[in-house]
């Protein structure tokens, strides 16, 4: 990843280098519990992503940080070490890029960008100079005099960014800033945002419901569901070591096989599924318990095929006899469903030379799958799942 060395620098920082601390935040809208006892922290300069499906409370959490929403209950909220629970949004050292940008329609691009300085009483010349700097940063200098409605979606997005950055906040809050853009533009903007993050070195808290976006951009991801945190950690943690079946599913793991834990040793769990025993590293939130329900999570691209008569001579692999099922053509690769006696398993085939009608078994390395709790609800201990 492009920002890995920056990330390394940051991890070197002490624990006291936390720019944001939210402790035990709960928020209710009437009967709806939008946020249920959530605590998060962000390190200075971190790219932190709040990931979750619609209605999981991401926006609510972001608004509480911004000061736009007063939480029902909170133990502590501090920005840069200073408790801000009594400080209104206008005086908090963070700014928001709104999902729909919220650019003022009665102002030009320049006036929009300058707004934060104008309300701070900074004089016109300096305002203009700094607005031009900010617009240069987002490559929109030539649009200074334009009206907002004369801009394209991507340009509006960048104006919103410049407007939020001009007051040099400690934290930039971004609420699905790329949600309204088309696919191609979104990828371009992702790169641009990462560049900007690296260049400015300020803390980004980024809301998205796209796991792909979260994986490519973040230093750390907080995955939320129904107002709770289900897992947090660097992208590789969520990708390779899902804490529950829900996380694995959300992170796009194609094959989730359900079974019972038969044995556990040294962090490796063996799960009985039908007549087979499958082993892999335990990644569940709590300790693995013998006899408990568990889920084997293996990605389609990790599933390999063994044609008839070809022996699998590797140690530490899981093998399932199979026959070929439906094939879906995806352009660069094929999504092949394989029927086994414990249900269908998906494999991704890049090599067109493989004859899927002449298979003996499928297999994957134990190190390439995760065994996790079969929990599909909102985190450990919650049984409120419908």
């Amino acid at each position, binding site marked *: 990843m492009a920002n890995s060395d920056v990330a390394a620098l940051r991890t070197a920082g002490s624990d006291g280098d936390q720019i944001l601390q939210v402790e035990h935040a709960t928020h209710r809208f009437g009967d709806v519990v939008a946020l249920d006892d959530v605590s998060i922290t962000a390190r200075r300069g971190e790219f932190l992503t709040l990931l979750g499906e619609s209605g999981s409370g991401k926006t609510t959490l972001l608004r509480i940080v911004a000061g*736009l929403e007063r939480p029902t209950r909170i133990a502590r909220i501090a920005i840069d070490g200073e408790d801000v629970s009594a400080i209104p949004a*206008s005086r908090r050292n963070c700014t*928001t890029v709104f999902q729909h940008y919220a650019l003022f329609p009665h102002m030009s691009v320049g006036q929009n960008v300058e707004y934060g300085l104008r309300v701070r009483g900074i004089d016109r010349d300096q305002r203009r100079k700094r607005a031009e700097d900010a617009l240069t940063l987002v490559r929109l200098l030539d649009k200074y005099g334009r009206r907002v409605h004369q801009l394209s979606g991507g340009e509006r997005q960048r104006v919103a960014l410049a407007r939020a950055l001009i007051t040099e906040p400690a934290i930039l809050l971004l609420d699905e800033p790329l949600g309204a853009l088309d696919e191609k533009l979104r990828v371009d903007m992702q790169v641009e945002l990462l560049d900007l993050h690296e260049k400015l070195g300020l803390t980004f808290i980024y809301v998205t419901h796209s796991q792909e976006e979260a994986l490519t951009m973040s230093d750390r991801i907080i995955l939320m569901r129904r107002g709770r945190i289900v897992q947090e950690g660097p992208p590789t943690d969520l990708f390779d070591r899902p804490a529950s079946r829900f996380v694995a599913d959300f992170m796009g793991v194609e094959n989730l096989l359900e079974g019972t834990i038969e044995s556990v040793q040294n962090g490796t769990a063996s799960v009985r599924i039908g007549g087979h025993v499958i082993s892999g590293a335990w990644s569940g939130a709590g300790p693995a318990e013998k006899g408990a329900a568990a889920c084997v999570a293996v990605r389609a691209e990790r599933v390999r095929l063994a044609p008839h008569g070809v022996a699998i001579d590797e140690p530490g692999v899981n093998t399932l006899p199979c026959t070929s099922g439906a094939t879906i053509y995806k352009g660069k690769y094929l999504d092949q469903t394989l029927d086994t006696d414990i249900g269908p398993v998906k494999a991704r085939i890049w090599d067109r030379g493989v004859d899927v009608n002449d298979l003996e078994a499928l297999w994957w390395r134990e190190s390439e799958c995760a065994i996790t709790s079969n929990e599909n609800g909102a985190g450990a201990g919650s049984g409120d799942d419908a």
Partner: protein
Amino acid sequence: MAATLTANDDVLRRLLPRLPAGVWSLSGFSVVWFGGIVIPLLAIILVSFFQGRGIRINIDPTFLQYERFFSYGGGDLLARSVRIAATITFIELMIAFPFALWLAKGCKNNMVRLLTFTALTVPFFLSPAARVIVWRSVFGINGVVNQALLGIGAVDEPVTWLIFSEFAVHFGFLGAFFPTMVWPIFLSISLIDNDFLEASNDLGANRFRTLVHVIFPLALPGVVAGIVFTFIPMLGDTVVAQHMGGNNVLMLSAQVQSLIGVSNFLVAAALAAVVLGIMLAFQVLLWAALKPVGGLNEVFANLRR
């Protein structure tokens, strides 16, 4: 109008070039507007330059009616009318804006809001005269206020300037024209997306600055509409001045009506023409006032976003 069009459809189609439906409805509207509104107005202006001879009317153009009007204290009448209308419009704006802001963004209780709407509309079920006349029992010589003042011994005899005075006229207008100012402003403030207010707040603006830099400019269409629909009908109002001002506070439109009452059509026409002139001047003034913010079009364009 529409019926005629359908009946003579074939004839019309042959006579007139084919035009899209939109143009038809527009031109239909123009005909009605021209025939129903513009022509009568032009007629009034025309008549105001005529001269009466017994029961006949002399067609030679003359300023006689205007001279008569001004020589009988018409200038004062004019100045008073405009002054009162402008004062009331200003006061209404000052009260209505905060009120509309509260109603649109501050009031979270739907019940309170509903009751407020009702309170704003109910008076319109009453005739204008009935609405105004109520104040007589409050401010009259034997009215509630005087009874109270006498009762507590604040005055020895009834206060007379409470009714049939400029004070009373102001009061009457204030109540009658509050809704016309509140409604458009309320609507335009309601249309302001909360995101803009939050963005302003988030970028460091306190409430006052948000009001000045965001809410007011975006509510400007409503403010303009409110001013127009308050000031102009007030100039045309005949009820309040008559019932609250009596003969002490004469105003233009009430005067037009009483002149018509005594069949003095020509001076009445001149007077009406003067009222028209003021309204026109007012529109020009408004247009000029909006010039610095991009003109009327730009102000209303912000509604569309």
